[in-house]
């Protein structure tokens, strides 16, 4: 589960950037979304109510071990960007 995974910290930082009142609600909804029955319940609601499931998915697919086999390597993109930036003297 994400709560114990390598990206739990980044998701937590993401939630912590939200307004205070919203953080509590989002954590509660995320807890619900992590449970199979809770996720099934959320899937019946309006699209925005499904946001917690979407956030969990975002964090999951942000994990390099999961995104690399899908053809996306964030570290490589960043390394290339830095190399080009320095070579061309950009800010």
């Amino acid at each position, binding site marked *: 589960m994400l709560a114990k995974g390598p*990206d739990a910290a*980044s*998701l937590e*930082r*993401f*939630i*912590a*950037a*939200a*307004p205070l009142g*919203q953080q509590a609600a*989002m954590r509660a909804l995320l807890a619900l979304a992590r449970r199979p029955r809770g*996720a*099934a319940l*959320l*899937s019946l609601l*309006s*699209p*925005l109510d*499904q*946001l917690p*499931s*979407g*956030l969990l*998915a*975002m*964090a*999951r*697919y*942000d994990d390099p071990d*999961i*995104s690399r086999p*899908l*053809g*996306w390597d*964030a570290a490589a*993109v*960043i390394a*290339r*960007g*830095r190399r*080009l*930036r320095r070579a*061309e003297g*950009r*800010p």
Partner: protein
Amino acid sequence: MSARLAQRLQAEVCVIGSGAGGAPVAAELAEGGVRVALLEEGAWHDPDHFTARSPEMLARLYREGGQTFTLGRPPIMLPLGRGIGGTTLINSGTCFRTPAHVLARWQREYGIEVSEDSLRPCFERVEEAISVDTVTPELAGGNAAVVRRGAERLRWSYGYLRRNARGCVGSGVCTLGCPTSAKQHTGITYIPRAQRAGAQILTGAQAKRVLIERGRAAGVLARLEGGATLEVRAPTVVVAAGTINTPLLLKRSGLAGRSGQLGRNLSLHPATAVFARMDEIVDMARGVPQSLYIDHFAEQGIMLEGSAGPPAYAALALPLTGARHAEAMRAFRQLAVFGLMVSDSSRGSVAALGSRPLIRYDMNAADLQRFRDGLVRMRELFSAAGAREIYLPLPAGVDPEMARRRDLKLMAFHPLGTARAHARPDQGVVDGSLAVHGLRGLYIADGSVLPSSLGVNPQLTIMALATRLALSLLEGDGSV
């Protein structure tokens, strides 16, 4: 970027905000010999610290971590940038000049003296400053190729977008901070120019109140990180805090409320995205995410524009759950996506809820119909492109023609209008020259002054109007 210990500064012009409005004003004025102080609430974001990781960069580069929502039917996510560059730091870089019919409407309905001819020199000046150029098909990538194929088969009008980018290699993460600094956002174009010309740029400085003395701007009170108060004394103040925060700052200051329009007339360009699974490898994250547009339905208020990103983006935006979501994500390399943006006639409002904005916005029937029509068109588009499966952003079993407001999964990126321009003081917050009605030395230069939806991305319009304001102040039409 600059000393944070100053308790009092003297300037000729104080600019609030470093985004599409504030940065051009600061640079043009500073280069014209004016002593400028610019206050930016956020930080300078060092590209060396960009990671292209979605949750992390959303938390760092976006106001409220990108988790700002409107209240209403339906709720809409409204991500805004925070830091040097404002939203230009995290937008897709798309550049459109203001459509002629919009300028004509502003003249006709709002009495604002703007025409294509009068704005052309400002557009040219901005486009040179931020290196606006058209995306090449090669750089646009596989996602744009899929959509182009669909548009050509349907004989729809389309084109490659113009963007403020130089040396772009299609990293695919414009909205997470450009790792090559190819996107020419205001933080690496206008702000360095302003600094070189002597402007003081203060980060971590949140404007709390605009000071007025005897009917004339006198400066700005700001709160610095750590809590100290900074007073900038300046006879001219240009507010460019953005459509959401500008009306809150003016309300806190007890200003510009006479017309009753401050905080009202909010338009958003609500948008959504449609995914499709193709037979071919698309690799949507390779290439410029927003590189192609379809304007075939622009007269109906429907604009189709590119929208793509890495797997984390797709995982968040994909309108599926459970096993179907996982199955679609396994085929990520075959996924294509395109955006649908509505030139809205709905209007919302911004008010203060404590220190936070309370954004109200209810979609009207006309805009709902635009979404229904737009989603039908998107389905046609991907069908024509040869999609194996199309994922509309609607609950299972809901046809686009029957979609209700609550069925829509929307985001918005272009809040406009909360301090709208109007020639009449009883109808607008600023006049056509962006001067606040009834006050001397106070101007607004951000999206809040635009009195209606544009139907296209607004950054170039905001920059051109800000440039026009700065040049008129330098010419002595203002009071610098």
